[in-house]
């Protein structure tokens, strides 16, 4: 009689206070739910919007056109010897992914309030799904980037093997900042009005329209504290073959990005127990 109960799962619920650990095993158990939430977000987005997939391309492409006209042609911003349209578009692809990830994830818990208040699952899944669902848009915009490189006759060198590293860095950064904003938005509901401002401000603080090589060396490495600097320079370096490699700045960016993710996860977990009461 007692042996049968030992086989069953046992869960103990008690008040959680302060810093709580992340249960990775449980997250793994819920991987199918993560898959379904990502799948739902993508499916619904492409079903609902009239332009569907085109939207994923229009957003970075038209920004590129405007940038090329004003920064490239009129202001004459230097672009490391690369045609300005490809130069800016190579940064706009990861940047668009990042800014969409922030706006999607920061609102994800509030827009999924019906789930949060009715079913239990690790809440981390919701913002993670919101970030991951942007990967498809990223993929479509990336295909256009490859097309542009073909048109301008740019052939990537062997350093392209480092591209996956920068993809991962973009994902980690988006996730880390996204988690911070998600948790903040549940606690302070006016955060969502600040998010568009943050992303806009952040874009001009990152080398999207210009090159980070404008900065002299000790400052360029310090600039890497903004993790998107490492991502954007990494994309240009691996794909467009910009002569000088980003150097130590990449390590600073990677470190900053990982710190943001870890602190984001813990801040999120700290508030997790209260989400259902606050949403």
């Amino acid at each position, binding site marked *: *009689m*007692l042996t049968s*109960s030992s086989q*069953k*799962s*046992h*869960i*103990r*619920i*008690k*008040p*959680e206070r302060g810093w709580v650990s992340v249960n990775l095993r449980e997250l793994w158990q819920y991987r*199918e*739910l993560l*898959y*379904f939430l990502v*799948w*739902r977000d993508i*499916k*619904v987005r492409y*079903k*609902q919007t009239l332009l569907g997939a085109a939207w994923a391309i229009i957003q970075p492409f038209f920004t590129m056109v405007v940038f090329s006209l004003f920064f490239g042609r009129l202001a004459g911003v230097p672009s490391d010897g690369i045609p300005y349209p490809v130069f800016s578009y190579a940064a706009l692809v990861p940047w668009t992914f990042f800014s969409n990830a922030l706006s999607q994830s920061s609102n994800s818990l509030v827009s999924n309030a*019906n*789930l*949060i*208040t*009715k*079913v*239990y*699952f690790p809440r981390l899944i919701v913002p993670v799904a919101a970030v991951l669902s942007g990967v498809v848009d990223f993929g479509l915009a990336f295909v256009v980037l490859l097309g542009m490189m073909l048109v301008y006759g740019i052939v990537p060198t062997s350093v392209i093997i480092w591209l996956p590293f920068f993809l991962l860095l973009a994902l980690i950064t988006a996730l880390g900042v996204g988690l911070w904003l998600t948790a*903040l938005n*549940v*606690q*302070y*509901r*006016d*955060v969502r009005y*600040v998010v568009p401002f943050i992303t806009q401000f952040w874009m001009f603080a990152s080398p999207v329209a210009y090159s980070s090589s404008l900065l002299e060396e000790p400052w360029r490495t310090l600039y890497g504290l903004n993790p998107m600097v490492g991502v954007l320079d990494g994309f240009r370096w691996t794909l467009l073959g910009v002569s000088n490699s980003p150097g130590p700045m990449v390590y600073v960016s990677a470190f900053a990005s990982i710190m943001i993710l870890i602190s984001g996860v813990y801040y999120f977990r700290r508030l997790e*127990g*209260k989400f*259902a*009461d*606050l*949403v």
Partner: protein
Amino acid sequence: MGEVAVHVEKLSKQYHLRSGGRERYSTLRDSIMNVFKLQRNHDRREGVFWALKDISFDVKPGEVMGIIGRNGAGKSTLLKIISRISSPTRGVIDLHGRVGSLLEVGTGFHPELSGRENVYLNGAILGMQRSEIDRKFDEIISFAGTEKFIDTPVKHYSTGMYLRLAFSVAAHIETEILLVDEILAVGDADFQKKCLNKMSDVAQEGRTVLFVSHNMAAIRSLCTSGIVLDRGEMRFYGEIRDAVQFYGNLVTARDQQETLNVADVGFTNVRVAGENTDGITTGAPFKASCTLHLQVALPGFQLFCILQNEFGEVLVHGHNTGLEAHAAVPGIYQIDVSFPALWFRPGLYSLHFKLMASGLASGKARFVSNTIPVDVTGTVTGEALHGTLTPDLHWHMVGTSLEVHVQESKMARP
């Protein structure tokens, strides 16, 4: 020592109240402002509300426990904590076995997605594995009866179809412990019956169920044990029949405090008597009675006898003005109201008397007696759960058939 499926010990849940409401999110602007205005921040800490206080109980494997109480008693909060949606302020809960919670049907259903897609999405949300959904998919849609529309977006479904599909997914969760909240309150009678039948199957499968409902008939037929919550406190824990009775007493006791009686007018001895003393039988006539004490003359008054169901819906609003002549003078009056057999579905009802006086110098006045529980008993067949009234009908069928073999085939399956 016996096994336990759910062990709840000294469970408490506290909410901070802000300006009279429930706990709400704040704004960054407010928090920044509060740094400068320290005393305002202090005010906020004051409003504390205990949604649950020191709740302790055990549920054995295979036991079906009913959780009853009024709205706001803490029933849903309790289920939310056991299903880990909300975290407790104090106390411990041990769950032995996989937990499935069914607090709402159709959680996470998306109108743009098809029935098929929603079954998979909803299944995953409820904690089912993909392989498990694959295996049960045909069963789920045939139970819902939506095979034809399975690839249509659910926004084109009728409410009934939507609910049937949603319930069907939920009904196929196979966890050892199942938490169910008030799902019978939605949908039409047909849907409710289906839910109830499925719930009684679940109860008979030997799974542990915690069941919240206002439907006393359902509670009584499904549950073995029960707890009664009132304003966050557990007031009763024991057999379901006793729990329902305790709840009935609780409801009427509360009403007595809220009675609008003034010294001049009073109702006493409100009673209902049928064939047996402690309740009435669905198919039998009964009598309601009370004593009216009048200290003053009350010209222009009306007397009502009101019978309500467990949801507070008024089923009978009996009214008689022929008593006016008597009540014009002070005195003590015995009032009897004879009811015919009403054929109400068995369950918990309530009855009270009301007096309206329109001819007073101060204008209109209203006096209400205390409310008493009326427990309607009777045998219910599965079919009788289908309506508000369960009259004993006598069927009769006559006709002339055109062909002999047609008549035979029709009558074979009535």
